[in-house]
């Protein structure tokens, strides 16, 4: 913690952004690095609590008071080691994590919490800048071979962990590049793709084999997979997009958020040359249905395409800016959040349900009809408010309604069970019905956060290592539960 009364002396400093006007002209990250003295004061705010709630707030169990203290004392390399001891990819979480650690921060009871995510990001970026982050090639090999299916954060974390104890790891990815949602779902202005490449290069040098453009079950036979590997990890993510089954949902101009974002990311990356009108928001009246993070990314992307205007619908009621009595510290606060993308230009509407899409004679969308809704606590569902119909003009509707589960063709081919919610079923050892097939990440948990995916990959790798070798020295988090 450094300074005993630091929290009384210093106020919280948030990461600063380049102005809206400037930043929407391109797809680059728009955060401004804080000054060294500012970082020092931010680390000084940590109170080194006797019971550090941030530890259990963080799904990875990051050793937060420890690295705060090291940053305060200018011991950056040691801080980096502490950070890497629990988190494989702090550069991803340091940019994108919603920070449940900050929600659980004890200082947050009386003051704005410690800027933990800011400090995490600065530690890892400093690490790359000083060339402290180098490949660690294991000295001895075990001779065991492991296949990781899916190169999102869960698969990558597991691959790095398993490789570090000497196993041969091959990561299969059906897309042309590594990263999964990190690359194709998240826009550049939130995470520049060079950041992913920077880390994947190290993973490759550490000895992990990556095979892109291979979809297990399609252009790679299941029996070949099972024959060639001692263990398999399924980390295929939660990719089935929730649909809106209402009249007109097959009109031109009604698209899924993931298709919109993937296309935009590939275009910015140069993977595709042409920006198809179908996936462009330029000059259009855009309506984004879904008020979550994906919806927010669609808003930011649409503004950068040059949308005429953007409206965002959310089914639930507008949250208050204060915690509800039923939602006390240290749990995640269900309060109103305004993201950097919201600030770039959008009109947000809550308690809205879309009833139908209306098209012109050529089958293009021209407007949609909504009704207001209210959540009935007794019946536990949304009920429509009478006489609240409204029409909205639109040229592009983006459905950002979340994901319902993993695609099930691979699990079925492998003969592993699915649970009631459609996720790949596993025991407490991340093991499926079949002993040598494990699972981690969104395909096991349901759609979740990057930080959870990394945690899943780490925990699963411990169990895989133990299964193959009889015991494992890989680190696990010591939690009996999470917040």
């Amino acid at each position, binding site marked *: 913690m450094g300074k*005993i009364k630091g*929290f009384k002396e210093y106020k919280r400093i948030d990461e600063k952004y380049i102005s809206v006007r400037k930043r929407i002209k391109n797809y680059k990250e728009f955060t401004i690095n804080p000054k060294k003295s500012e970082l020092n004061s931010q680390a000084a705010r940590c*109170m*080194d*609590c*006797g*019971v550090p709630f941030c530890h259990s707030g963080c799904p990875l169990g990051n050793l937060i008071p420890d690295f705060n203290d090291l940053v305060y004392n200018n011991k950056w390399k040691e801080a980096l080691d502490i950070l890497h001891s629990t988190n494989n990819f702090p550069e991803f979480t340091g940019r994108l994590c919603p920070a449940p650690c900050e929600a659980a921060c*004890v200082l947050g009871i009386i003051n704005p919490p410690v800027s933990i995510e800011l400090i995490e990001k600065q530690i890892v970026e400093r690490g790359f800048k000083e060339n402290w982050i180098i490949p660690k090639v294991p000295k001895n090999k075990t001779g065991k071979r492991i296949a990781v299916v899916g190169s999102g954060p869960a698969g990558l974390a597991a691959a790095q962990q398993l490789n570090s104890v000497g196993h041969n790891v091959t990561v299969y990815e059906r897309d042309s590049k590594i990263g999964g949602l990190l690359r194709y779902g998240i826009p550049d202005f939130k995470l520049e793709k060079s950041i992913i490449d920077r880390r994947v290069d190290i993973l490759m040098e550490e000895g992990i084999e990556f095979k892109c453009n291979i979809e297990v079950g399609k252009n790679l036979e299941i029996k070949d997979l099972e024959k060639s590997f001692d263990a398999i990890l399924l980390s295929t993510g939660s990719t089935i997009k929730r649909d809106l089954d209402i009249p007109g949902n097959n009109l031109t101009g009604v698209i899924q958020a993931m298709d919109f974002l993937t296309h935009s990311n590939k275009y910015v990356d140069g993977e595709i040359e042409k920006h198809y009108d179908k996936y462009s928001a330029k000059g259009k009246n855009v309506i984004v249905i879904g008020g979550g993070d994906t919806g927010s990314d669609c808003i930011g992307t649409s503004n950068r395409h040059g949308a005429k205007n953007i409206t965002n619908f959310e089914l639930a009621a507008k949250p208050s800016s204060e915690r509800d009595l039923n939602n006390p510290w240290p749990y995640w606060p269900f309060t109103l959040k305004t993201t950097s993308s919201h600030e770039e230009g959008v009109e947000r509407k809550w308690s809205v349900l879309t009833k139908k899409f209306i098209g012109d004679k050529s089958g293009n969308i021209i407007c949609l009809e909504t009704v207001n809704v209210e959540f009935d606590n007794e019946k536990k569902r949304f009920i429509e408010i009478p006489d609240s119909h409204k029409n909205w003009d639109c040229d592009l509707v983006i459905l950002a309604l979340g994901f319902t589960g993993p695609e099930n063709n691979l699990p079925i081919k492998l003969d592993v069970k699915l649970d009631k919610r459609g996720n790949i079923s596993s025991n407490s050892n991340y093991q499926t019905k079949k002993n040598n097939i494990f699972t981690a990440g969104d395909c096991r948990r349901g759609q979740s956060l990057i930080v959870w995916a990394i945690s899943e990959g780490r925990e699963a790798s411990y169990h895989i290592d133990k299964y193959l070798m009889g015991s494992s020295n890989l680190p696990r988090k010591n939690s009996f539960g999470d917040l």
Partner: protein
Amino acid sequence: MSYGSISKAAHENLAMAMNRIGGKSNSGEGGEDFNRFQKDENGDSRNSSIKQVASGRFGVSSHYLSNADEIQIKMAQGAKPGEGGQLPGPKVNPSIAKVRNSTPYVGLISPPPHHDIYSIEDLAQLIFDLKNANREAKINVKLVSEVGVGTIAAGVAKAKADVILISGYDGGTGASPLTSLRHAGLPWELGIAEAQQTLVLNNLRSRVVLECDGQLKTGRDVAIACLLGAEEFGFSTAPLVASGCIMMRACHLNICPVGIATQDPELRKNFKGKPEHIINFMYFVAQELREIMANLGFRSVEEMIGQSQKLQAKKGIEDYKVKGINLDKILYKPISNNISLRNTEKQNHNLKKVLDFKILKEAKLSINKKIKTSLEFKIKNTDRSVGAILSNEISKLYGEKGLPKETLNLTFNGSAGQSFGAFAVKGLKMTVFGNTNDYFGKSLSGGILSVRVPKSSTFESSLNIITGNVALYGAINGEAYINGIAGERFCVRNSGAKAVVEGIGDHGCEYMTGGIVLILGKIGRNFGAGMSGGISYIYRNQEFLKTKFNMEMIDLENINDQDEDIISGLLENHFSYTNSKIAKMVLSKWGKEKSNFIKVMPKEYKIALEKIAEEKINQLIK
């Protein structure tokens, strides 16, 4: 958890909660604000039912004790065995200083032992003193769970304690050093079992109430404690957690973010605890206890006490560390036919023969109507704690104010017993012609005391011992004039009384925090040890050895004009009250003799006085 270690709001919250449900809260060792003794407008009481008497004797005055339902002598503490506490000067803000009867910004040290308890007989004397100070209150002695606590408990029961508290190792103030918190004391289970068995086997159990504490959290804890022999149960960490404590473990740093263990006014605003929260927690504990009782077949808690046959060791534990443990001795139930397993009778404190009752009869009118009265009595050394009951009666009527100065003038002829003038309040003037024993003027609360040689004596008073050891221990206010030499530890823990004496033994003015002491003769070694406040003047009429002083916290200075006035004033009083020859001599040659005085000034005190003066000036400027 004294007020001082936790904030006013947190401390009062506990008191209000306990007072609402018929429980008892504890003042802790820091004294208590007098305005808490009266009920609030809404009917709530913030008075601490149990008032603690710790080794520092902070705030222990007649008025304080008269407002207690139970008075607790803290012999030891689970987290700090054999250690005193220390509140550093900067933490002693004006309101804490007021409650502890000390000077702001002067460090407060609680000495390791009680300086009036060096044997079980001494403890019996203190119990007697406190029973006299408030005969309606139960006297509670707090012990710590350790091997041998049973024997100690037996002694304490014989010493007439009404309640014996066995404290486990787990509790404890956040201000203890970590080594003490973790590695001292034993679990309460062992202590209670041993105490219960020893008391029952020696037919002492029926006279005392056995209390237990140390991280009790659930109804199950209470059930086990009860079955092992306890009939009262103390909680402190748990209700604090119910009030908002999040176990920051930063109590000693004064940065508690939830306003409980801090004096910082900014942080105290964050305290959100309410009595309802604590009451709710206690309700759940009681509910769980009821469920267990029903399970065991008990209809009342009284039936449960000491029924250790209802406890058994878990069977089938395979862990190699635990496998060989035999709990039989802990669960042993002494076979008792007619011997009680719990408290069924009161202690006989033998108060009937106390001299004070005789005095009260004759002084009643004087006290009730504030009429100046002079009375004379014979006194012998079996007359102990003379003045305590009188002071209690005066405190009950008039509170801290007491009676006008010298309303009740009492003269005693003979040799006074222990604790003469203990807790003596304002309005009392008590003089002994003869001598007194130990603890003269203990916790003096504003009265005037003097002991002087008998009128017919021919020996040199300034060369002879006239009073015993540990005089004026924990004195708060008042005056004492001693026409002779006193024993060891003169004025130890004095917080504000003025005293004149004609010579003392070793360890004079130890741990003093306030008051003025004038010594007209020899001093012993180690003078001024731990002295953080108050002033002493010493008359250099013979060889003056600097080596007799413990210079760690004090400086020796020459006196100034102000000091001259103080000393001459004290000398005049001393002569007037005791006819002291040496006082007469010095006054008659004052011009010359005044240069023979040296001043002992504690370093912290000097700084504190300067700071207070500065603050006063700043206030005036504003």
